[in-house]
């Protein structure tokens, strides 16, 4: 109705023929943590460019896309109700399709020839996760890049998020090929997903800490430079799908969590319990099936039967071999 639909990007660039890093947030309208982190990055990079942060300088091209799905963000919903389309299942899009196709195609074209890319993603809907890195079938260079994005978040610890050192391998599904991240990987972009937090909310403290991780990553890939500081490799623990244990609710009801994400759990530690809404009776207590780190926990209290309420990352089971055959 006359209101233009625009895709905004913020760009900082030092000359031509330099490496490019693209950072994309807000593919879903409820991924607000990413929007906030990008806003912190924008302020940081502008401070660098304006000389307010001595020692730092822009050494490549950095482009930030703070809010791709503006329509859904404005609606306050995950998806735009006009087309009910999951924008992260519409890549690479098309230059002659409908609005969503065009938007995806423009974003794809602006980012697919980047050397590096970061997708800022939230946790699963109605859950909270510790911030972590996700990779698809990681090769050496992706693992190396992940180590530079990893690293302890100051203030982390048993009661807080333990840091970004967790790298999870993504599971390709039939719909996965339509995701932006998959399109980047197919285009040989060194691409990582930075996921976590809660959907439809922000965690300013964690984002403040994550800013340091992304700055370290920018130093490592050379789009940002510092007079004396060098990028540091963080500790990263790589978890494949076999390391994930999902705990599901056998009953529906009100979930009252007891554990906290980021907690190192011993087998049998109570994760929370399900109560019947009408009677208040405890229907089920949920426990950690084995030792592990609590990656994701249900954040929204109403739970359907068979829904996952917690995801643990566990160490691979040791194989014992008998000394005889």
């Amino acid at each position, binding site marked *: *109705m*006359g209101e233009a*639909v625009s895709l905004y990007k913020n760009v900082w660039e030092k000359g031509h023929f330099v490496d490019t890093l693209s950072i994309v947030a807000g593919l879903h309208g409820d991924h607000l943590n990413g929007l906030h982190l990008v806003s912190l990055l924008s302020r940081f990079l502008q401070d660098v460019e304006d000389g307010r942060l001595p020692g730092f300088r822009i050494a490549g091209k950095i482009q930030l896309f703070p809010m791709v799905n503006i329509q859904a963000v404005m609606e306050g*919903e*995950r*998806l735009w109700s*006009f*087309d*009910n389309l*999951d924008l992260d*299942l519409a890549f690479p899009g098309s230059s*002659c*399709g*409908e*609005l969503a*196709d*065009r938007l995806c195609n423009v974003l794809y074209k602006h980012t697919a020839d980047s050397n590096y890319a970061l997708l800022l993603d939230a946790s*699963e*809907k109605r859950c909270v996760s510790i911030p972590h890195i996700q990779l698809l079938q990681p090769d050496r260079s992706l693992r190396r890049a992940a180590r530079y994005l990893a690293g302890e978040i100051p203030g982390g610890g048993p009661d807080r998020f333990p840091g970004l050192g967790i790298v999870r391998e993504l*599971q390709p*599904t*039939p*719909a996965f*090929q*339509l995701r932006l991240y998959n399109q980047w990987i197919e285009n040989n972009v060194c691409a990582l997903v930075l996921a976590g937090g809660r959907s439809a909310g922000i965690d300013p403290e964690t984002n403040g800490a994550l800013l340091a991780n992304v700055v370290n990553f920018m130093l490592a890939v050379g789009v940002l430079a510092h007079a004396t500081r060098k990028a540091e490799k963080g500790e990263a623990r790589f978890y494949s799908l076999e390391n994930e244990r*999902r705990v599901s609710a056998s*009953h*529906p*009801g*009100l979930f009252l969590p007891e554990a906290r994400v980021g907690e190192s759990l011993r087998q049998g530690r109570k994760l929370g319990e399900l109560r*019947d*809404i*009408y009677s208040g009776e405890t229907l089920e207590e949920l426990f950690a099936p084995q030792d592990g780190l609590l990656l994701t926990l249900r954040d929204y209290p*109403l*739970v*359907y*039967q*068979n*829904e*996952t309420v917690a995801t643990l990352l566990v160490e691979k089971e040791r194989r014992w071999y008998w000394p005889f055959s």
Partner: protein
Amino acid sequence: MRTRSVVAYKGPSGASVEIVKQTFSSARPKPARRVSFLAGLHGDELEGVYLCFLLVQYLRRLKETEPGAFLGEVNVYPAVNPQALCHGSRLWPFFSVDMNRLMGEPAGNSLPAGACRELLADLKGCSDLAVDLHSSNQHLAELPQIRIVKDFEKKLLPLALQCNVDVIWVHPMAGVFESTLGYNLNRAKVPTLVMELGICLRIHRDFCSQILDGAIHLLHHAGVLNSSRRPRGEIKMPLVLKADQVGLVQAKRAGLFAGRVKLGDRVGKGDKIGDVVDPVRGETLEEVVSPFKGTIFTLRELPLIYEGAPLVRVALDGPDER
């Protein structure tokens, strides 16, 4: 008729949610063939749900009056996305997911992924042929049609010709189909016809009775029914379109689309299709004319449009009509 729940789970309040299957068994010990109809994968697509009502009603009467007519087995799944149906929404509410983009996912991923897996397994286990009924989304209305991915044309086209549709559209494979129910069933060697008719949230009784005739005809053709009182009406010879025989007219400007054509209308090159207007300024932004000669089989119903919005799809009279 035997009623069974193929997927069941309870909501937070404790109320049960079920995907129900109605089975009309064969009069023979071993059914000649088993055909399944399902509707409501998108919860706002009610034409298929109504069609299932018509079909169940017909089959119940037939079972009462002529039980021997059932040489094979018919399964009807009238509402496979029950919560979305209650909500009148395309997506499975609470999770905001499209069930027809979840097929083939590991069950552990989420409750909807698990439900999709169970549904798919049930369909595979009881179908030698399936029909997946859809309407369009809220933007477009469709003449009754069957869409076939090119890879499955050989197997599906002869079956699609029995369904009394107006159009059969054979289109190339694209990544988006891999997570759909139709594709996954076809890959699993259950020939599956994906049918589109009408528009969501509405019922076109004439389209539904046309496709009921088609469904009954298909069941006789497949050897599942053999009724002495089978309707003898002719079924339509549909337009069979390849990708290059479909002309798409898109909006060049955003605004309100006021159409002046109907589904099934014939258009020639230069014929006026409608106007795109700017209601705020009172201006006509675009007079939309057809660059093609043929039959309109898709029509814009939601007047709100952005640039690139599809306005009509035309079944071209020939390849040179482009």
